[in-house]
């Protein structure tokens, strides 16, 4: 009889411990994420303007969103940024990680690589804003010193978005490289030795061993950087404020503009909900497509 009760009591105590450990992050999740999200969702069905009491307007905001050409433009501009940002940043990071793995295990070099990432986004944006200034910027002084026409960079419709993408690649590539570098450490060295004995060259080893075994880490890196990339805001808020005209008016800036410039909180949250749905879909597809939960090492 007593032998029955003993494991149950232990199990109950174990569960209690488990909840105790989960509680801090669970409460954090509820307070800082779940509740605001639900309130945001509710807000998207109102016409709240911050000061007057909110009025329920049904799905009017969503109907408006479907016909909003500016929103479609914002999505296009955001997608353009992601396409400029992610492939180059990931390739660069992968290259840097493999180099580090091969040639240097020095923590100093690793430290230098993450340095741009350690700087606050605002500082990075401000530094580049000054360096890239169309008239007084340091970079333009160099360009003119070499005998070329000075460039408007952030001041031109065509150059603004590539410039912002370049700034963020500079900031994030090192950090992404460190993540991939960590992933490289999990690949057993015997595999490379075995491949070498079989006569595989560096390229074959890279494509046949490194990339497939790195897949879970790469997927993680891609999922997080793509989400982060869709959420581009601070660099734009500091440098171009969505301009020139609407060349860098990404979704996040568009949301900000509606919320805090036009004071249409209801519509702003509607756009946020739409962006949330888009990001969930993209992440889901990525996880499915890359089979992120299984590793080829097993």
């Amino acid at each position, binding site marked *: 009889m007593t032998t029955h009760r003993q494991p149950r009591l232990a199990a109950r105590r174990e569960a209690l411990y488990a909840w105790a450990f989960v509680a801090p992050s669970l409460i954090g999740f509820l307070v800082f994420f779940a*509740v605001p999200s639900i*309130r945001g969702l509710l807000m998207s069905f109102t016409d709240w303007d*911050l*000061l*007057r009491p909110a009025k329920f307007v049904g799905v009017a905001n969503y109907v408006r969103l479907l016909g909003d050409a500016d929103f479609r433009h914002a999505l296009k501009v955001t997608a353009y940024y992601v396409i400029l940002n992610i492939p180059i940043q990931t390739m660069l990071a992968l290259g840097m990680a493999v180099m580090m793995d091969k040639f240097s295990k020095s923590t100093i070099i690793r430290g230098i690589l993450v340095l741009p990432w350690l700087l606050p986004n605002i500082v990075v944006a401000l530094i580049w804003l000054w360096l890239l200034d169309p008239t*007084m910027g340091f970079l333009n002084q160099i360009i003119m010193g070499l005998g070329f026409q000075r460039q408007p960079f952030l001041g031109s*419709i065509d150059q603004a978005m590539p410039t912002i993408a370049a700034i963020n690649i500079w900031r994030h590539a090192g950090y992404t490289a460190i993540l991939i570098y960590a992933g490289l450490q999990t690949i057993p060295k015997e595999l490379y030795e075995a491949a070498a004995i079989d006569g595989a060259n560096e390229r074959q080893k890279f494509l046949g061993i490194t990339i497939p075994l790195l897949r879970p880490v790469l997927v993680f890196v891609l999922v997080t950087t793509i989400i982060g990339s869709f959420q581009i805001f601070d660099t734009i808020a500091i440098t171009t404020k969505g*301009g020139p005209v609407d060349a860098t008016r990404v979704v996040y800036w568009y949301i900000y*503009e509606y919320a805090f410039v036009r*004071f249409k909180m209801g519509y702003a949250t509607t756009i946020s909900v739409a962006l949330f749905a888009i990001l969930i879909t993209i992440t889901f597809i990525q996880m499915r497509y890359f089979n992120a939960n299984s590793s080829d090492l097993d």
Partner: protein
Amino acid sequence: MRSRINALAFALMVITSMLLVACGAKAPAAEPTTAPDAAAAPAATAAPSTEAVTIRYGLWDGNQQPAYEACAAAFTKTNPNITVKVEQAGWGDYWNGVQTGMVSDTAPDVFTNHLAKYPEFASKQQLVDLKPFIDRDGVDTKQYLAGLADLWGRDGKTYGLPKDWDTIAVVYNQDMLDKAGVTVDELNNAEWNAKDGGSFSQIIKKLTVDANGKNALDKDFDKTKVVQYGFIPGGGGGAYGQTQWSHWAVSNGFKFNDGLYATKYYYDDPKLAETIQWYANLNLVDGVAPALADIKSLGANALFTGGKGALTTDGSWMIGAYTKDTKFKVGFARLPKGPEGRKSMFNGLADSIWVGSKHQEESWQWLKFASSPACENIVGSYGVVFPAVQSGVDAALAAYKAKGLDVSAYTAQATEANGTFLFPVTDHASEIGPIMDAMMDSIMLGQKTAADGLKEGNDQVNALFK
């Protein structure tokens, strides 16, 4: 197992509902501030409060902060129990702060208000109606320069008392004029039209110099190598073009709308289109003005004081910014005479009281003092802005004169018959702004013609009123 999940679910529900209650509780607390209740009406007799009170006063122009701090000190001398704390923040941060402050119950008691902003605050019931106070204390609103007080009323209510005003004039670099052989007299008597820019355009061209020392009137002028621009535009100017294009457009016969609280704009007027096209073409076609990217990066003021160009147009509140520490002599000339004469926007600021203020009576006492000759004479003596009462203007003129500055181009414009038009005050300003900002910039960058862009912008703006 089952009961454990239920217990957990119950616990979560309790936590969540507590949070919701906690969040929701803020709204009712803010209720009294949003309701236009009787608290806003002053007591029949001002209760002489003896309790020590601190009033927070917000403004965005850093140049005026010392002047208002002097006013505040003078005020506290006669009202020992009231201390005024002057809080300053730059234009963008200032309005963010005021707006979010109203939501979070931390906005300043009294704050400097703008004509493009106050109708929205008023319609959201954030401003105290000053009319009962004015009537009670018998404040004479005729003491202000003509038209200024009227801008701050709607439907029998008053939301601000005028504190200052401004007009627009041409700012010139004396050295560059001398070198090109242009006299100030020529500049003061220049004429302008939207077709070819008139004699003003000729002056601009004469003042534009390329790397080979040739001016823009020369056949061999190379507009890709300009070292000195004849004119520095203030940028796209957005919905009102206050210092940028409004004076050109109105002197060409354009009007924004049909007056206070109009519900229709006329941005599609061909007279505006030809004006804006002329303005954009200064850079796009003629090469006598810097590109929008350059203007946006530094601002027209910095380009001018950095010696990049000879002329610009700007408001009277900027006099100090142009003359202080500038390495060359700067002067102010009249706006050129357009087809309809010389026209400048006449804009005025006023102080408003936020409904959330816990000390509305004391706030009124301060506001009344700040917009009275006693304070405006002090502000005028600092020579940073033209106060709204004549004695203050005289004090300002004396202060400018003491600094060796002739600013009569601004005052002459203000006093000239039909020399001014008022800032367009309507609803939806916070939405009109972003629409027209983007539209004007795209015209300035040559993405759209003025005619197309303004038509498109006008449709979007007028749709807001439907």
